[in-house]
């Protein structure tokens, strides 16, 4: 039982949703896997819960090389990776990361949009999306806007969404084939929040070889290591260049200590894991 009263609505259209969302104390809900937990603990106490999962247009998924992957806000993580093979084929790092979100039961409810809107620094789906230059389509009664995912988060649990705005869809541009890895360290091997999560994606590995890195649980928001990426671009992957690259990844982080791990450990792993991933991908021989 949730220990306070609120009203619950399930609009079937966006316009209906916007109307209810304009009420005082209204919050949007998708899968509810974060929101219901927070409400139970009274960390969030909305007066009105607006369940968006009954809006048909939020369930769309499409892909084309030009438009990229468009993921409707209400699409569950399991629907996305089980029903759309394109995710695994074209965005392998994203696919890997989704599999590491919560439990199978959770992923039958949780959505990528919800993971983003919840804006936890530990959100597993976010680092790979950052490396794929994802954008967030935000809609409200006043219209729509496109926000770069890298600009979406403003702090732990905070983001650029204004009252009345909701995520409509996530757009993941398709640039070229990619390889990579999402490496997550957590206390237990499944169903845990990350102590650190590192997504390393190599766009066009056989061509321009653009290495991108983003991390979870090492800063107030998920972060992308642009400086490191700039440094390694067009460079040979040698022991010294990879070392410097990894240092620059590390410098993009500002970890803290919590129940899952210390600041020092996270700081160290922020350097170890990019090297590890490059090595496991067979792109670099060195051992730390």
């Amino acid at each position, binding site marked *: 039982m949730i220990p306070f009263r609120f009203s619950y609505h399930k609009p079937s259209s966006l316009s209906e949703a916007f109307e209810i969302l304009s009420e005082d104390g209204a919050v949007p809900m998708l899968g509810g896997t974060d929101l219901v937990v927070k409400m139970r603990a009274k960390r969030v106490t909305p007066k009105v819960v607006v369940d968006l999962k009954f809006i048909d247009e939020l369930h769309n998924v499409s892909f084309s090389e030009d438009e990229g992957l468009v993921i409707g806000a209400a699409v569950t993580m399991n629907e996305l990776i089980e029903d759309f093979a394109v995710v695994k084929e074209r965005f392998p790092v994203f696919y890997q990361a989704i599999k590491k979100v919560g439990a199978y039961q959770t992923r039958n409810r949780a959505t990528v949009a919800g993971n983003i809107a919840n804006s936890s620094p530990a959100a597993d789906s976010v680092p790979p999306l950052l490396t794929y230059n994802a954008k967030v389509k935000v809609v409200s009664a006043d219209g729509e806007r496109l926000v770069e995912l890298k600009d979406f988060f403003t702090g732990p649990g905070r983001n650029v969404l204004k009252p009345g705005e909701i995520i409509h869809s996530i757009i993941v541009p398709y640039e070229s084939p990619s390889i990579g890895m999402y490496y997550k360290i957590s206390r237990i091997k499944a169903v845990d929040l990350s102590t650190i999560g590192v997504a390393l994606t190599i766009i066009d590995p056989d061509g321009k070889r653009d290495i991108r890195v983003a991390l979870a649980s090492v800063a107030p928001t998920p972060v992308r290591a642009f400086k490191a990426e700039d440094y390694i671009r067009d460079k040979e992957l040698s022991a010294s260049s990879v070392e410097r690259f990894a240092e620059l990844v590390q410098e993009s982080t500002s970890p803290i200590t919590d129940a899952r791990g210390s600041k020092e*450990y996270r700081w160290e792993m922020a350097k170890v894991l990019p090297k590890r991933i490059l090595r496991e991908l067979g792109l670099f021989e060195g051992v730390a």
Partner: protein
Amino acid sequence: MREKYVGKPIPRVDAYEKVTGTAVYVTDMFFPRMLYGAVLRSPHPHAKIKKIDVSKAKALEGVAAVVTSKECPYRQGIYLVDRPIFATDRVRYVGEPVAAVAAESMEIAMKALELIEVEYEPLPAVFDPLEAMKGEVLIHPDLASYERLPIYNIEPEKNVFHHHKTRKGDVEKGFKEADYIIEGEYSLPQIYHAPLEPHGAIAFYDFNGNLTVWSSAQSPYTLRNLIAHAFKMSRHKVRVIAPYVGGGFGGKAGINMEGIVIALAMQVPGRHVKLIYSREEDIMATVVRQGMYAKVKAGVKKDGTLVAWEETMVFDGGAYAEYGTNVVRAAGYTTPGPYYVPNIKVDSYGVYTNHLVGGAFRGFGHGELHWAVERHMDKIAKTLGMDPLELRLKNVLRPGHTNAMGQKMHEHTGNVEACLKKAADLIGYGEKPEQPKDRVKRRGRGIAALVKAPAMPTNAASSVVIKFNEDASVTLQVSIQEIGQGFNTAITQMAADALHISPDKIKVVFPIDTDANPYEWQTVASRALWTVGNALYRAAEDALSQIKNIASQVLGVAPYNLEVEDDRVYIKYDPEVYIPLKDIVMGYTYPDGHAIGGPVIGRGSFVPERLTNLDPETGQGNAAAEWTFGAEAAEVEVDMETGEVKILKLVGVFDAGRVVNPMIAAGQIIGGMVQGMGPALFEQITYTDDGKPISISFTDYKIPTIADMPDEMIADFVETPEATSPFGVRGIAEHPMISVPPAIASAIYDAVGVDINDLPVTPEKILKALKEKHS
């Protein structure tokens, strides 16, 4: 004992209920007009309560009762009565109950809690037991006035609720004889039981002053006893009914949260009040395993022979000791575990802090003591340049040796040497594990031994009633709780063999009802098959002799010439002459109508034989009735870059005396070993610097999932029949958890050459140690 069913892997008698979801737990029970309870808890680790105002809560529509220490000024406790049901003048941990409400709905109850006003004045708090021993902050200024069993030795000015002393031989003399003196420090944090079923209870108080409590309890009778004691009631007015328990691991032993719901029910006679803890409450406000710090000094000869062992253990008992007093005692009298040392000096201190309350936990002090002992054995082996297994085999307790409290070991006491050798074989000890191609990952193997006896009062009693029904089927009454360990199945097998009938004809009465079932001390200490087995044997003998006495009159032969088998009583030397059992068990009726005998009811009682209290100054005496030895081994893979550990294989071998049901026994071992992995690698109660518990949900307190399971796990047995059991059995329930952490730590050392002595062995600690090693 003739064995037909003992030793067989028969399916569990509770199987159908459990796989169909029809097994009833307290939380599944509903009564007409039932009220819902909720508890207001302390937000402070240590504070004075200046004022509690419940008037607004009482006035809320739908609130039936509000209770504080004013209405319920009682303390509870099994060994030391130190834990108030509701905080009175002060709170001593975050989560301590301050007030409770019973209302028509859960929602109203929760709302009422918000209306209770409590004014606190924070007090200085202490979280480190070593710090607490300085006595600068006294958590229980009135400790000396608390009721307690006299065997517990309090030191009130040091926050010590029990100081246990073992003095065997002359430890100073031992150190003089030693070639090496090796010292070490070991520690572990508090951990949580994490049964899948949180604590819950329903209470009903009638207008005659009778109290009925349905509780998720491991110890229906002890619970009844402690309720009656705390609430100053006659035992016959208190009835405890205990349906299935969804996991206990010690956390549901003794008395726990029941007092709260009882206090509420007493305010509203004639109405049931239900209180089911949330997971958060279960972690914060029941009990956890005590933390421990140990300092060891061992004297050893060049050849590895232990000659002296000196150890100080300091337990972080949390805000109340209660049951935990005996954890401190058991660890104190068992150290140094499965090894023979002629000269021993152990001081085991239980210390109050403002942490969560420590209490009984699977292993009962032995997970803690073996962490120190087994880690230190590895350190000794390293210092001597000796193989750790060889060192252990050299020093294990053997027949003729005496243990720390001076008890003599016999051939039938159990065989730790055989356990170690078997575990070593099964893990491939001595051969180098095949190393992975990835050079940052290294594999290693480790082994650790263990011993544990039931930690219980000298007179912890059991009883059994065997009632024959008209068709010669049997209703078996005992009061050991089925908490998942498989007791009801195993006792059915034992009863079938003791009565010479088929297990299909036997039903164990369930749920346990103290108004109907006979006395049993508790479902703890891995003692049930041993102690109840003794009572059962006597009850079966009693029933069989009644049957034979009646049949002897009918058949005209001496009772000793009769045998009972399945559904008949026959003459041993002429088996074709028999009477159907069903014609005897209600008494025998002759063709002319006259009858003899009467319903057969077998009765058996048991108390452990020849146990004594320990000498308070030396700890010498006879406190343990039987000892179960074991050995556990691990193979691990350590990632030297990230510090991550993967458990590849776990092995557990225990001298069970006699395995009653190999399928269930193996299940206990596998389950216990995985439960041991958690504290080995990641489980711990964490706190903020100002003493607020952080890990109070399954989001923050993680336990192993199926994904954490080792690739391979093996459970195996040694069977040295236990002489004090007619069935030859001894307990194995707690043991599998005990030495998994030291076996894993040992394997990590074997893999990467670093010793971690503070649990849990996290990736961070391994990395830090690797760095220190290489610098």
